[in-house]
């Protein structure tokens, strides 16, 4: 049976836009979380116990995801700025998108090593 609603088959530009929205929302949610944990700074023991939580593997993986969201959002933002200001960038927007996505991916992998390594070596 046919689905009641179908997906519009846009090309890379549509997915660049969707991913930009999603990563933007995630980064915003993280900032809320960040404000909450920084606001506990007045009581150091609460602050420290919260920050111990960040050492577990799930929150470290979350941070890797956050790093990707931040990098993608920043780099794709630059792509949109390029499209807005440089008439030539628009002719190769797909290439620029794939470059920015790959760059975000590579930088996330590098960052992941630094974020995850302490968990495995035990040197938190």
């Amino acid at each position, binding site marked *: *049976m*046919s689905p*009641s609603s*179908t*997906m*519009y*088959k*846009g*090309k*890379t*530009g*549509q997915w*660049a*836009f*969707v991913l*930009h929205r999603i990563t933007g929302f995630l980064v915003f949610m993280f900032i809320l979380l960040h404000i909450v944990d920084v606001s506990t700074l007045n009581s150091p023991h609460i602050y420290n116990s919260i920050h111990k939580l960040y050492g577990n593997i799930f929150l470290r993986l979350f941070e890797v995801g956050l790093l990707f969201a931040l990098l993608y959002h920043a780099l794709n933002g630059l792509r*949109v700025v390029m*499209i*807005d*200001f440089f*008439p030539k960038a*628009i002719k190769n*927007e797909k290439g620029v998108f794939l470059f920015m996505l790959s760059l975000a991916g590579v930088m996330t992998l590098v960052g992941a090593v630094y974020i995850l390594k302490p968990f495995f070596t035990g040197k938190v």
Partner: protein
Amino acid sequence: MTTTIAKTGSVDAMELLTVHLRIKRYNPEVDTKPHWEEFEVQQKASDTVLNALHNIKWTVDGTLSFRRSCAHGVCGSDAMVINGENKLSCVNLISDVGTDLVIEPIRGLPVIKDLIVDMEPFFAQYRSVIPYLIAEDDPGYKERYQSQEDRARYDDTTKCILCACCTTSCPVYWANGEYVGPAAIVNAHRFIFDSRDQGTERRLDILNQKSGVWRCRTSFNCTEACPRGIKVTQAIEEVKRAILYDRV
């Protein structure tokens, strides 16, 4: 330039194929919400999707409703979502789009019946950008001359046939019908960059508002969807820069 049509492959143009269509249907008199109906028709590989729809309407189910007028990609009546992309049914051949078709009305505009949508919001947005030549001064007993370079400046955006493929492919427009949409901006661009026109300031003011060009998030769906091959996103960006730098 003619309406763009993908090149036909090596398929035998006269070969009869069984075309399977799933069409999103809605009859406001009996349905509370749209539903899908399936049809199977025999078509030549060189037939258009519109031929298949005609075949259904004329031989299988006369209640199937859709718009079409010239059937040759000029009037812009038959934009619809074919296999997930906005296309004109009259210029897409079965040999290009395949024999398994999912057809829906274009998105972002209210459905009146089956594949027919209410185009009035779209045309109202088109009218809002003052899409005609404004030239108050008297040119005297001669024409309003224009160099070939000046004419070429807005050539791309003269090709619009107001089919709404671009506007109804825009994710921003689906979410916010207040946005004037790509088609209106394309038609504003056609006059903004016309050296004979004197209404540029008025149009840029209109497009500088909340519902204007700044709603564009460069998803490029409009450029991909345009059956006339207009570089829609590029035109929108040119208008954005004209507003930003206050020059055309």
